[in-house]
């Protein structure tokens, strides 16, 4: 499946990027395509395109703060968790995404 998502933590220095790396690693290991945007102290990086969002089967938001441009994901299947969850259990989170998608079909 195709996953897009955003990671954004409280301070925007560390957890954001660790969550991004862990989720990307877990999704790729499970054979999925993934692209994670980060919103941190440095600003937005790896910004998701409208096309990427349109094509995505599911959206994972790993955030502790209010996201910029959250409305981009209106109408999509969204899983929203704290960054800690993405850091602690990235594999479980990807599995959850698989389950949510299976329910939909």
């Amino acid at each position, binding site marked *: 499946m195709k996953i897009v998502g955003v990671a954004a933590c409280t301070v925007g220095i560390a957890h954001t990027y660790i969550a991004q790396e862990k989720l990307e690693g877990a999704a790729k290991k499970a054979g999925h395509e993934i692209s994670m945007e980060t919103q941190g102290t440095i600003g937005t990086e790896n910004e998701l395109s409208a096309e990427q969002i349109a094509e995505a089967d599911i959206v994972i938001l790993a955030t502790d703060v209010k996201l910029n441009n959250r409305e981009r994901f209106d109408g999509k299947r969204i899983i929203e968790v704290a960054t*800690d969850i993405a850091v602690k259990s990235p594999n479980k989170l990807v599995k959850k995404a698989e389950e949510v998608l299976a329910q939909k079909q």
Partner: protein
Amino acid sequence: MEINEILNERTMKTNMNAGTKDEALHELAGLLLENDYITDIDRFMKDIYAREEIGQTGIGNYIAIPHGKSDFVKEIGVAIGINQSEIPWETLDDHGVKGIILFAVGNDNDGADNHLKLLSMFARKLGNDDVVEKLLHSERTEDVKEAFAG
């Protein structure tokens, strides 16, 4: 841009012998002070502890990433300590920590985009299990640098 640019062997310590979180934080902040990354150790520590109160900085796998933004940071950088024994810490997996990475970031980061970018690249590495494994087994500061080079 190379992650190495943000790493400084003078702010790394392997075979560290801290018994508590506070000892470890003070030892690493001391390295940051000696090497001119921060201007005031007590007030820097206060900002670090303010972040500690919000939530766990132990990310599991025996790694902790204490950080916070502080007015007493002169230059963005990191101090890295590899401790000989496990230190009690608030962590996501309920283990203690052996690898402590203390981030120093200012409140005003104008003109520091390059360093912030390097820091984000560095933080990503900590989400990689292979890097963490190498880091925890570092015996010399060169090993620490090497762990992040891959």
